[in-house]
């Protein structure tokens, strides 16, 4: 038991960085203000939880009306399991294979199954808050509104703890198989990056199926008719998430009546865990230990044609670009941040065939021209904010930040390279939005103004984001995924973006009221944005010169 206890405790501490935080906040007494941010984030969860409770309450009333109030439990459990399945994919991949301490346990006299199980325990603990946030309110709403007894809440504890086991087990098996199969090639990292892409594409495929079939019934018939339909989401839940159904049976019936569900639930979960751990015996270590060392002739060939010298700025930009694109977790964050929102909005419209009608209605609006420009600019700024390149500019360097500090290049130039990289993505987003506008019938002037205003507004957002990351960098990450998590920077950025949106929206509206010609109005806004960009750039540059020497690790 000693080995197990040691492994589980290590996994738990490593997962939540307990030792690091204890050392930082209580031994070295540094960055203690971060504790206030954590408390703030916890408080911020309260309104989110309330929103979820209200959402479940509405659903409960709907289900009650159809005579199936317990369906809220199936749904809540299914949603939680689905979330663990999807988010778990990235989490499991990161913790099992890309954590810096991944290979640290290989030499110890412990079995791969033990290492795997202990790591999965840490992942389970880390996934629990999200799972509880999504699932527990559904159960509590049911409990309160149905007036259930104390036994409901007692049974709730083991059910909540065990429900994530199966989706985590399934995810772990998929990840281990994937990593084992892709571990033989030179471009291992790139192949690994395809995994989440495939997952995202599957999600979109699922969305197309849902939109093309099941969900179209919603707007035609009543919710009740849809829910009772054999192809309803409840039927789907029964098939896809039997554990959600068993959990519902366990908690809504007496122990004796629900004994079969208890047996199926517990044995099924146990089997999933044992199966994954057993598979880990053969798959985990071979997938973890890289086998991609190459001794080719390309190196010698490269020596005959060494590339031309570049300026330090261009060299830094190239380095930033390569590190971003070649780190799957970073590349995914960037690409998904740009791809998901437009696809999530446009795909259902396209599948349902409503886009022609929607477009015709939009084109009929008297302010269609203005709408295209300003919604385009808004979309550029929104998607720039979503991709996270700028908000992780400094943090992405991790421990190599100290390396960058030894370079004979000013902090201002180093930060400028990061800014240009973020702007390159804003440029790509602008092109993407411009393409959409073109298909919506936009003329050259719309594309011209959207490009200029979008790029300058995006530059402002990225500049502020880089400043935030300079103030609160996260360099001590263990897995690349951690760069994008926590710290509240995303929250601050949303607040800043909202504020800027209100300010610039107000300015545009005021100028519109004065009846200025479009050319003059747009030019004024452009000059204003360029001025703000310049101001922010100078500010961020100075901040970088001041912060770089101070950031120690």
């Amino acid at each position: 038991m000693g080995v197990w206890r040691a492994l589980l405790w290590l996994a738990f501490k490593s997962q939540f960085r307990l030792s690091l935080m204890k050392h930082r906040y209580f031994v070295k007494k540094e960055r203690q203000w971060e504790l206030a941010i954590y408390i703030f984030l916890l408080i911020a969860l309260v309104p989110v939880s309330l929103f979820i409770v209200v959402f479940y309450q509405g659903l409960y009333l709907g289900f009650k009306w159809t005579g199936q109030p317990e369906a809220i439990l199936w749904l809540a459990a299914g949603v939680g399991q689905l979330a663990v399945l999807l988010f778990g994919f990235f989490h499991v991949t990161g913790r099992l294979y890309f954590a810096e301490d991944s290979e640290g346990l290989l030499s110890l006299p412990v079995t791969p199954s033990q290492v795997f199980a202990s790591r999965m325990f840490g992942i389970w603990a880390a996934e629990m808050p999200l799972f509880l946030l999504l699932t527990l309110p559904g159960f509590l709403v049911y409990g309160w509104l149905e007036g259930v007894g104390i036994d409901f809440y007692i049974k709730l504890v083991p059910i909540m703890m065990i429900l994530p086991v199966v989706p985590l087990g399934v995810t772990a098996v998929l990840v281990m198989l994937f990593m084992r199969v892709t571990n033989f090639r030179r471009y291992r990292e790139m192949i690994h990056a395809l995994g989440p892409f495939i997952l995202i594409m599957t999600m979109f495929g699922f969305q197309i199926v849902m939109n093309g079939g099941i969900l179209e019934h919603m707007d035609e018939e009543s919710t009740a008719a849809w829910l009772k339909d054999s192809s309803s989401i409840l039927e789907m839940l029964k098939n896809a998430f039997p554990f959600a159904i068993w959990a519902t049976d366990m908690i809504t019936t007496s122990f004796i009546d629900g004994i079969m569900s208890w047996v199926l639930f517990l044995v099924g979960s146990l089997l999933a865990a044992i199966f994954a751990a057993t598979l880990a015996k053969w798959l985990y270590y071979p997938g973890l230990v890289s086998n991609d060392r190459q001794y080719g002739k390309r190196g010698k060939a490269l020596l005959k044609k060494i590339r031309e010298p570049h300026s330090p700025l261009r060299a830094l930009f190239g380095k930033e670009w390569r590190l971003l694109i070649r780190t799957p977790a970073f590349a995914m964050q960037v690409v998904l941040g740009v791809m998901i929102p437009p696809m999530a909005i446009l795909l259902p419209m396209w599948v349902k065939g409503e886009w022609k009608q929607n477009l015709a209605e939009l084109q009929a609006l008297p302010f269609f021209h203005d709408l295209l420009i300003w919604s385009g600019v808004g979309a550029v700024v929104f998607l720039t904010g979503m991709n996270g390149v700028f908000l992780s500019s400094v943090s992405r360097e991790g421990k190599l930040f100290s390396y960058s500090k030894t370079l004979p290049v000013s902090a201002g130039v180093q930060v400028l390279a990061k800014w240009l990289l973020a702007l390159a993505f804003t440029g790509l987003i602008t092109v993407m939005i411009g393409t959409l506008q073109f298909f919506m019938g936009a003329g050259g002037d719309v594309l011209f103004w959207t490009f200029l205003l979008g790029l300058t507004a995006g530059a402002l957002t990225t500049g502020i984001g880089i400043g935030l990351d300079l103030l609160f960098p996260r360099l001590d990450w263990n897995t690349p995924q951690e760069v994008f998590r926590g710290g509240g920077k995303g929250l601050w950025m949303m607040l800043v973006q909202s504020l800027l949106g209100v300010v610039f929206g107000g300015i545009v509206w005021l100028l519109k009221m004065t009846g200025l010609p479009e050319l003059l109005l747009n030019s004024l806004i452009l000059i204003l944005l360029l001025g703000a960009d310049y101001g922010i750039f100078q500010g961020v540059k100075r901040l970088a010169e001041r912060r770089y020497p101070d950031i120690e690790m």
Partner: protein
Amino acid sequence: MIWIGNVSKRYAKTGPLAVDGLQLTVPKGEIFGFLGPNGAGKTTTIKMITGILKPDEGDIEVDGVSISRNPIEAKKRIGYVPDGADPFSRLTGMEYLTFMADVYRVSRDERNKRIPELAERFEMQDVLGDLISSYSRGMKQKISVIAALIHSPPVWILDEPMVGLDPKSSSILKDEMRRYSENGKTVFFSTHVLEVAERLCDRLAVLKEGRLVAEGKLEELRQGTGGQMNDEQTLENLFLELT
């Protein structure tokens, strides 16, 4: 030349001094060994020389340029090989070298001459097209050494450079360090391998708990003129007694 003037560094506000009033001068053309037990402050000192850490007190000059007042100019004069060198692992060896050549503004002719020369000397020609993440520890150390020398700096600083190197690579590195000092440049390195320090260094310094406890040529240390030693001893005995 490296000049360290009464430098102190503390990590936590109320914690102990990691480096305590260090005063040291390393002239041109010298190989200087920096010794001390774990946690003595060697890496902290090196990080202050290279501009990674800011001294709380004192100043450091590299080739006559202050690292705190004129950091960019000072850094141009340094080639640095960090402890457990693990450079940008998602770049290929060649991408890393050309990146370093760019930021140190190495001309086309110089890079065309130096990269093949150093790659051949350290037997890295065949793997320059591969990602650094696929390199062994020794190969990572060697690519870091090549990158540090690409601009032919007047001061070469190495933190535990022999770790991870096979005997042949270690020998090549030692030859390179000698060749470097013979050309009038400064080599400053920390090590735990006393045999290397004994054979290679012109002068040595021993650090303990952030303070300099001995400094001088090995003979001087042995004869008691370089610090607190008073008998003829091996460096190992000296080290054990001092620390």
